[in-house]
């Protein structure tokens, strides 16, 4: 077997890899969209007045957060069909990623809401604003900027966890690399290319998140421009 990096082989498989990258981006985007919504539900469970619902919600969140995503994927993928629910690998993957990162996002939301000063609530109460109005016009506009960096971080996080989807057969980038590698008995180029593609996509994304974070801090007067 030829040693060293074979550029011609890398060039040959490049189109395949780029197509698969598109799938990875779609998977990350859809998973993230689901996670954003799921996070809202967990947040709701946390903020309802009922102690029982709070407790159940907290246990579910803790359980999902402290168990590996990989096994959760297997669980959803292999167990649901036994109850007659037949879903494709894509759907299973998206649901699991949505649930897993939804628990993290609910914490981001919670932190952001708690980041809004208590006096804001008191002022609204004093002005006789309704709860809905308080949330819509006073609290959420202030909480949202606080949540942005955390939300951005988890977008990057989901993106980096999409290779796990290959284990249940979702045809994303890593899956394609493994397939190409197995077919040609050469893993050096495909896996290296996966790494490079990830770097190319995630470093600018992480930098953008950091810039947002800075902008938010400046807007809130925490640091000077």
């Amino acid at each position, binding site marked *: 077997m030829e*040693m*060293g990096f074979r550029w011609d082989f890398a060039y040959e498989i490049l189109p395949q890899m780029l197509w698969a990258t598109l799938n990875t981006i779609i998977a990350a985007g859809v998973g993230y969209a689901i996670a954003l919504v799921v996070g809202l539900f967990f947040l709701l469970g946390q903020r309802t007045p009922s102690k029982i619902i709070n407790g159940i919600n907290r246990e579910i969140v*803790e*359980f999902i957060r*402290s*168990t*590996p*995503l*990989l*096994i*959760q994927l*297997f*669980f959803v993928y*292999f*167990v649901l069909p*036994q109850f007659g629910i037949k879903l494709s690998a894509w759907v299973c993957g998206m649901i699991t990623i949505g649930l897993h990162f939804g628990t993290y996002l609910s914490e981001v939301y919670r932190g952001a809401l708690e980041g809004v000063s208590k006096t804001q609530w008191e002022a609204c109460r004093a002005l006789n604003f309704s709860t809905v109005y308080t949330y819509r016009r006073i609290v959420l506009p202030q909480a949202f900027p606080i949540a942005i960096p955390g939300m951005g971080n988890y977008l990057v996080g989901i993106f*980096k*966890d*999409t*290779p*796990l989807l*290959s*284990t249940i057969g979702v045809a994303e980038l*890593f899956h394609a690399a*493994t397939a190409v*590698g197995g077919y040609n008995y050469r*893993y*050096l180029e495909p*896996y*290296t290319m*996966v*790494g490079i593609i*990830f*770097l190319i996509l*995630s*470093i600018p994304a*992480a930098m953008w998140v950091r810039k947002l974070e800075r902008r938010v801090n400046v807007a809130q007067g925490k640091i000077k421009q």
Partner: protein
Amino acid sequence: MSYFAFLAEHGTTLLLGTVTTIKVLICSMILYVIISMIFGLMRLSKNLIIQGIATVYIEFFRGTSLLVQLFWVYYVLPFFGISLEAFVAGVVALGLNFGAYGAEIVRGGILAVPKGQWEAAHALNFSPAKRIKRIIIPQIFPIILPPAANLTVELLKATALVALVTVVDLTFEAKQINSITWLSAQCFGTALLIYYIMARLALVPFLRWLEVLAAKKVGRGNV
């Protein structure tokens, strides 16, 4: 097949896998703590080359996926004549990946030590090495331990990935039992429970204990 019959038949296998998972966790934990310390300090070096090396390392390992790094270490390094055993490859990949995240925590912790401490050490004519070792490092633990605890729980979860490079850990055993018996709910459910118990009843209390200990050591007890 009842759940108890399942446990009686496959419980030992799962427990043996759990032991491997714990071994992977402990080894990669030691490795990542050492790496974080070294690279966290390097990141703050005034020497641009040392700082550059640390920055490239951290950005590289935080920018790519752990699974990709793991497969790279296990399947690609042999191309360069470095063949690692699956267990070693798993520990190395985990240690390198989490070391990059840990280095950022260490860096933040060092920056959070009040400037007066540096100045006082300087005024007392401590050598730079002694300043770091005796004054700064002992004070960063109460600051870095809470985020490091989160990271370590993430590490426990991440150890599941080593199953994909044929390390016979809990995840590997669960997958194996699943492919033989097709009792997916039982084997993956049990695996999830074991991970949960390890995290909630062992790892987290241990890390909390460390946090309290560190706080006491710098005279911030009873917090």
